[in-house]
């Protein structure tokens, strides 16, 4: 059982993020299955309530669960890999608290006030009379608090990378290394056959985390910014002032909003994921990363790519200039296939060089994550095409074969790989109790995630829209029944994982991650990691 009293502050911080993340993940799965039941015509709720659940679902899943788990892991990994102290433990604690409050308020805005402008928030729907000002205000406040937490994480992370408390180092070379520029320089030196390759200052996972966090800042800036506008409208509604919505052009808004929102999917997810793969590959194989200079350079290329791909979300907007559709929407977007493909190649090759390897839980889940992105990224490239998007846009294909394949299978399994790898480090070498439960988690999650995403993809190809209801229409019921069957496997996976973790940590240990209970017995154990 976990002896929480023996944990160092950084371990506790990471575990707090992990516990909250897994609870939000459970909520997201519950929401998913409720919506699935509604889609196969079980009248569980009214249409406004259904869309309210759909409003909360991505916020809980992405920010409450995925971001939370990633941030917790990075708060632990960045100081550990850099062998320096975290800039501010307090800011770290404040991050998970604010993010938890923010996501919870957003959930309340949907559950109690039926606010349902959905993830896209297309102007002027959120500030329209379709929703109560209480719902709008709650969503805006929740999102502002959430984004404040995200900003604090970014600030704390950058400060941890660059602070000079432990050792004085020049900032310039550190910044160049963190951006991956030294990878380009080394490649250039090798190309011209001159000079010696310089050893990079920053470990490669730090480069990926740093790079991904730049996109996180920009994303938080856009989402936080629109929330301030929403709040301004809500306050005016409370005061009886009906503000005009004409001041903001709907198409310009859509471009700005998608530019920021897309940084989540195409910027930081792919980059954070690449960084996590590189870290896991080196940890599992015990070898240096294959073609590490290329990996560093590719992370910098992804910076350019991720800032210029948003127009693939506007391929069906006829007022959007064709040149933007072709260059940003099609061509630059296609390079996400290249950057992700490079990350897959480097990770697999690094592992291959260390064979034979034992199939441990982190390795299994890492390969599951790679499989998820191998299926999800090409699906995204297919829909980011002028011809295909004319039909696939806003269908179940987008959110199934692409979105859920990447998020549930690709990102989800990568995060679980990190969770299983970090678990002993965070708990002073505590081992998970059951290998059988780990295996059940792996197989049910993999089969459930892929099966559900494929069923949704087929529904999309047959014309089913992703944010619509079909009451009394059974056209897509077979697809949704198959999706529900595979979706229910995800619940089994979640329960297996939670049972394994809780039985290993113990209820007391779990609570003591957050608060000290009376009567605890302190046993001396050696911390796995010193910071």
């Amino acid at each position: 059982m976990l002896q929480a009293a023996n944990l160092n502050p950084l371990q506790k911080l990471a575990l707090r993020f992990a516990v909250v993340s897994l609870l939000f993940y459970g909520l997201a799965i519950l929401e998913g299955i409720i919506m699935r039941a509604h889609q196969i015509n079980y009248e569980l709720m009214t249409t406004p309530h259904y869309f309210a659940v759909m409003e909360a679902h991505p916020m809980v899943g992405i920010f409450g669960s995925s971001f939370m788990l990633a941030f917790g892991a990075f708060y632990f990994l960045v100081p550990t890999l850099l062998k320096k102290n975290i800039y501010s433990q307090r800011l770290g604690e404040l991050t998970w608290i604010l993010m938890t409050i923010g996501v919870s308020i957003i959930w309340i805005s949907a559950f109690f006030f039926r606010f349902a402008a959905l993830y896209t928030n297309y102007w002027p729907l959120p500030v329209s009379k379709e929703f109560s000002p209480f719902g709008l205000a709650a969503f805006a406040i929740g999102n502002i608090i959430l984004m404040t937490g995200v900003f604090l994480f970014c600030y704390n992370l950058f400060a941890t990378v660059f602070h000079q408390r432990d050792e004085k180092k020049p900032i310039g070379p550190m910044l160049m290394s963190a951006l991956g520029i030294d990878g380009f320089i080394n490649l250039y030196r090798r190309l011209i056959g001159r000079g010696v390759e310089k050893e990079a200052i920053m470990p490669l996972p730090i480069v990926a985390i740093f790079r991904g966090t730049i996109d996180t800042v920009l994303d938080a800036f856009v989402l936080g910014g629109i929330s301030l506008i929403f709040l301004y409208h809500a306050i005016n509604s409370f005061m009886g002032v009906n503000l005009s919505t004409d001041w903001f052009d709907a198409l310009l808004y859509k471009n700005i909003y998608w530019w920021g929102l897309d940084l989540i999917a195409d910027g930081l997810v792919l980059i954070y994921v690449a960084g996590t793969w590189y870290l896991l590959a080196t940890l599992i194989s015990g070898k240096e990363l294959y073609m590490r200079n290329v990996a560093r350079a590719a992370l910098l290329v992804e910076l350019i790519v991720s800032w210029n791909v948003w127009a693939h979300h506007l391929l069906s907007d006829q007022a959007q200039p064709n040149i933007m559709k072709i260059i940003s929407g099609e061509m630059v977007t296609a390079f996400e296939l290249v950057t992700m493909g490079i990350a897959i190649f480097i990770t697999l090759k690094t592992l291959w060089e260390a064979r034979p390897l034992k199939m441990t839980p982190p390795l299994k889940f890492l390969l599951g994550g790679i499989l998820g992105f191998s299926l999800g990224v090409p699906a995204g490239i297919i829909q980011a095409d002028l011809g295909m998007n004319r039909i696939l846009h806003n269908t179940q294909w987008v959110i199934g074969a692409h979105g859920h394949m990447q998020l549930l299978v690709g990102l989800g399994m990568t995060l679980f790989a990190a969770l299983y790898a970090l678990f002993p480090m965070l708990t002073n070498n505590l081992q998970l109790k059951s290998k059988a439960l780990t295996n059940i988690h792996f197989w049910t999650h993999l089969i459930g995630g892929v099966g559900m995403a494929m069923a949704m993809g087929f529904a999309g190809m047959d014309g089913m829209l992703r944010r619509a209801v079909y009451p009394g229409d059974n056209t897509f019921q077979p697809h949704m029944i198959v999706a529900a069957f595979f979706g229910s496997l995800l619940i089994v996976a979640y329960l297996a994982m939670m049972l394994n973790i809780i039985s290993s940590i113990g209820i007391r240990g779990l609570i003591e991650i957050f608060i000290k209970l009376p009567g605890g017995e302190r046993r001396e154990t050696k911390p796995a990691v010193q910071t």
Partner: protein
Amino acid sequence: MIESNNIFALLKVVYVIYVGIVFSLVGMYVFGLTAKTKVRPGIKVPFYGWVAILVFFGVGIHIMTFHKIPWVKWDLSRNTMKVDKEFNIAIADYEYQIPEEQLVIQRGETVRFNLESRDYTYGFGLFREDGTMVFQMQVVPGHSNDIVWKFDKPASYTIRSTEYSGPKGANLFATNAVIVSSEPAVAQIDKDQSL
């Protein structure tokens, strides 16, 4: 003329094969990775060869669809295209304001749909009777939203909003609002005779 349901019938097969290939490759990789005796891979892909393959497929798909899918060219050149018919449709307060009860098109006609939204962002999609989609576009308020399409098969289509515009938008559709009659358009007959 190639239609969307032909493309997706093919895509379904390609997609299933692709998923099978990915699972097989991962399975073979795992076998090689964990085997106690070192397994030599049947195919060796050099790194830069792999990058070239990715670029080829990433860019190649757009070049292929540009040449094979007719509506890509219609879309890119729609401002200069001559059409046989033009329909102006407005959307306001979750209702399509369609000029006639049914929009009748003759087989072979090229049609421009001009859509205007007076409040929110909606969608405009045409669906076949089996639920499959013919095409769709976004209808953004404050902007002109038009699409050009050529209809060469007699059919009856339902209009449905393909963009979420609030819970009330779930009921935004007009069943069998577009009819393509089996009588070929005069322009098409002239064209066929000239051939």
